[in-house]
């Protein structure tokens, strides 16, 4: 029974395919999986927008949406109808073709990333040998769509926002890649299915997730920072800082094209959280051996929702960074820590079992963290704040 529940979607798909002739089964199976992914994540997006608006409202001591439906849960419906019926305005001087293509390319490349994410036991669209590389290749392509949107709008705010976004995404992509390379070093595989399997064993009822090792924890922190910046979320949301740039690169988009941008960015958050939980948090694995009777897909989507909650919490809590702080942070703190983490992972591999490697690896990482932090803070002067125009 437990086994059946765990595989319920796989069994359902096979049952549906059973009615088709042999030669049709493979292509139709792929289409069914793709349709499920394309249907599921926008649905999750709709639910999460309400949660986000409610959550941020609570943090800011407001009520949030509460008019549409009970407790405002039908708000995404109203938003969807509104964006579908709104007029699609394209500026006269805009570059028509590029302006039209940008949101489409964003959404397509973001959804491509889900093709290699294992969402449960045996639930992955393509188990590619180079799955992680495919994911990052698709992630790199989204930068181009952001640039296309900003440039084609012929608006200085759009262009500034796009330049900020691209500079930020390029800088943090290095950190994102380097923090994931550690996992590849330890598992010896780029396939995400194999990475989950490498974490799939328990001792004393506790899981062997990569986050429970010194290099894994450091890598996860770097990954979380870089992932937040990569998806342009607060506190790294300078590209759309509304107090400076109206709305950044999608200032000139309205109606459904704007909705597509919103969807693309939000689904990118799901995707980066999904990859993070696959790499560091054991993917679809249960957090305790005793909890393995709960289906694997519940764990995957549970982890997804927890990390979305953290995203929302961080957005409600932290102030936005300044552009120079952002770049300094990426190149002078995150990047050196990622490189050091690679070294530590190698050390861990060759020191063999035992408690010594725990001490040595943790000591190196903590020392580096403290000294880089101290060195960075030493040149900063924190005096009483002076206001130029407000006094």
């Amino acid at each position: 029974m437990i086994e059946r529940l765990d595989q319920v979607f796989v069994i359902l798909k096979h049952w549906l395919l059973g009615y088709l002739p042999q030669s049709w089964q493979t292509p139709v199976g792929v289409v069914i999986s793709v349709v499920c992914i394309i249907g599921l994540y926008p649905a999750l997006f709709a639910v999460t927008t309400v949660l986000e608006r409610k959550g941020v409202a609570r943090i800011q001591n407001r009520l949030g949406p509460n008019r549409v439906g009970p407790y405002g849960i039908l708000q995404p419906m109203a938003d969807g109808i509104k964006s579908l019926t709104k007029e699609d305005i394209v500026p006269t001087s805009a570059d028509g073709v590029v302006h039209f293509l940008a949101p489409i390319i964003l959404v397509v490349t973001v959804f491509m990333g889900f093709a290699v994410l294992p969402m449960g036991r045996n639930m992955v669209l393509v188990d590619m040998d180079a799955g992680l590389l495919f994911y990052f290749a698709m992630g790199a392509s989204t930068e181009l769509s952001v640039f296309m949107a900003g440039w084609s709008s012929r608006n200085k705010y759009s262009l500034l926002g796009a330049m900020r976004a691209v500079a930020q995404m390029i800088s943090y992509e290095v950190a994102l890649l380097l923090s994931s390379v550690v996992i590849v070093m330890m598992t010896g595989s780029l396939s995400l299915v194999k990475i989950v399997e490498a974490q799939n064993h328990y001792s004393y009822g506790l899981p062997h997730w990569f986050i429970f090792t010194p290099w894994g924890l450091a890598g996860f922190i770097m990954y979380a920072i870089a992932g937040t910046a990569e998806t342009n979320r607060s506190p790294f949301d300078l590209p759309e800082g509304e107090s400076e740039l109206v709305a950044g690169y999608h200032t000139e988009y309205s109606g459904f094209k704007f909705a597509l941008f919103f969807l693309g960015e939000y689904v990118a958050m799901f995707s980066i959280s999904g990859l993070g939980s696959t790499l560091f948090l054991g993917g679809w694995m249960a957090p305790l051996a005793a909890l393995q009777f709960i289906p694997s897909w519940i764990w995957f989507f549970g982890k997804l929702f927890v990390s979305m909650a953290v995203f929302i919490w961080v957005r409600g809590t932290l102030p936005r960074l300044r552009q120079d702080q952002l770049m300094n942070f990426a190149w002078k703190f995150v990047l050196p820590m990622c490189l050091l983490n690679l070294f530590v992972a190698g050390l861990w591999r060759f020191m063999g079992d035992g408690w010594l490697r725990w001490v040595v690896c943790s000591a190196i990482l903590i020392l580096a963290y403290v000294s880089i932090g101290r060195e960075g803070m030493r040149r900063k002067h924190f005096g009483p704040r002076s206001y130029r125009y407000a006094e």
Partner: protein
Amino acid sequence: MGLVFYVISFFAVGGALAAVLLKNLVHAALALTIAFFGLALLFLRLDAQFAGFSQILVYVGAVAILVVFAILLTKGSEVPKQGVFSKSWFTGLAIAAGVFAVLAWAVLRAAPSLPNETATPAVNVNDIGNALMGRYVLPLEIIAVLLTVALLGAVIVAMHEKERAGQS
């Protein structure tokens, strides 16, 4: 070969041609991206996953963005009024044709000497890693040094520019 090959080739060649012929520099850069994508898809059709995805990651994710950045930072994004052909187009064409001829000659000469494999060779990412860290480690290191030198050079060029701007 099949239909898919011709569709991909159409995009790769068309993108490359558009990159040369379009007037607007940003459009040209975006067309170049299509050519990069086409090349990556051709790699993937040959079952070379690593090469294909690296092509997208490096060329579309980094090189295309750098090209676009360079165009915007040098104010080259305005559409030129006159034609896009420079005065020395004939020399350029001759050099390009020469390079193409040499490459084509080398490739055609090398083709018969390769083992004529009928089955698809099963090369996975592991083998590529082992080869890069074993047999080809010296070329890899040389490329790394070259890239580092290029990086330092770029930084020095940029710093020099800034100093001069500060003096004037």
